[in-house]
């Protein structure tokens, strides 16, 4: 899993993904957006609140080309929906998004939001990356 920081005071619309040493030159098999409220280090996630993930888009760069451009984060959510009002989490029925082993340049990749999310506290996006 990778955590991408989103500062509480950030007002921009482009959130760059920091260097991921374990993923340099890694061949990506699949990516998903886990249904978690805190990341591995206890940081609040933007993963469970619809007003964050429904407004976020992902761009991935491979060989200096934006091969994935403005992919709605919704396409990466695979967790089944709850039936309780207010706890609905969307689910893409197509399952995890599979890749052909592309070596993503994470430092050039980024999230985009139409307007600042204003999460109130320092938060993170978390992506689940399957690779070899």
């Amino acid at each position, binding site marked *: 899993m990778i955590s991408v920081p989103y500062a509480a005071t950030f007002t921009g619309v482009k959130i760059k993904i920091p260097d991921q040493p374990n993923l340099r030159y890694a061949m990506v098999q699949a990516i998903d957006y886990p249904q978690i409220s805190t990341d591995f280090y206890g940081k609040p996630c933007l993963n469970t609140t619809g007003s964050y993930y429904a407004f976020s888009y992902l761009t991935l760069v491979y060989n200096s080309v934006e091969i994935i*451009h403005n992919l709605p984060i919704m396409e990466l959510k695979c967790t089944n929906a709850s039936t309780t009002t207010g706890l609905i989490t969307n689910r893409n029925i*197509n399952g*995890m998004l599979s890749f052909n082993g592309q070596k993503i340049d994470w430092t050039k990749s980024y999230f985009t939001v139409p307007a600042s999310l204003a999460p109130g506290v320092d938060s993170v996006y978390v992506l689940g990356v399957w690779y070899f």
Partner: protein
Amino acid sequence: MISGNKTVRRFEFLEIVVAAGSTSAQQFFFPDYPQLRGAKAQYLTAYNAQILPVTPSNIPTISASDLDNGFLVLVINDKEDIKIPLNSLINHGTGYGVNSTNYQNINGYLPLNDLIVHWSKSYIKFTGVISGSQFTIALGLFWQPLD
């Protein structure tokens, strides 16, 4: 767990902006996407405001009710070969924050089997009254270059 043969090479978020005051008498054409000229289309999906409230351009996404009145026409080899209801392209069952329900196609993404779509000739039309305010028709296209 990993969706077998639906591997991704490229993805593009397609937007058609419908101006305020537009009516269903009009056809709404895709803008030119230079990177998609001659590209092979693999899979197509659509979004409404319950899934994505606004697009990256910060324009409201089409409402579920307007989308249900919409039809997509894809032009391949100068023929209108594909005409399909927009809500057949929805892959997300519910809205993100409310207990709303979308028509969800259980077959998943629409497979286009590497068709070369002439996007600037393709369009969307509506058969009922549409919202009078500005909105965006939003589609997601998985594609690969013509190698």
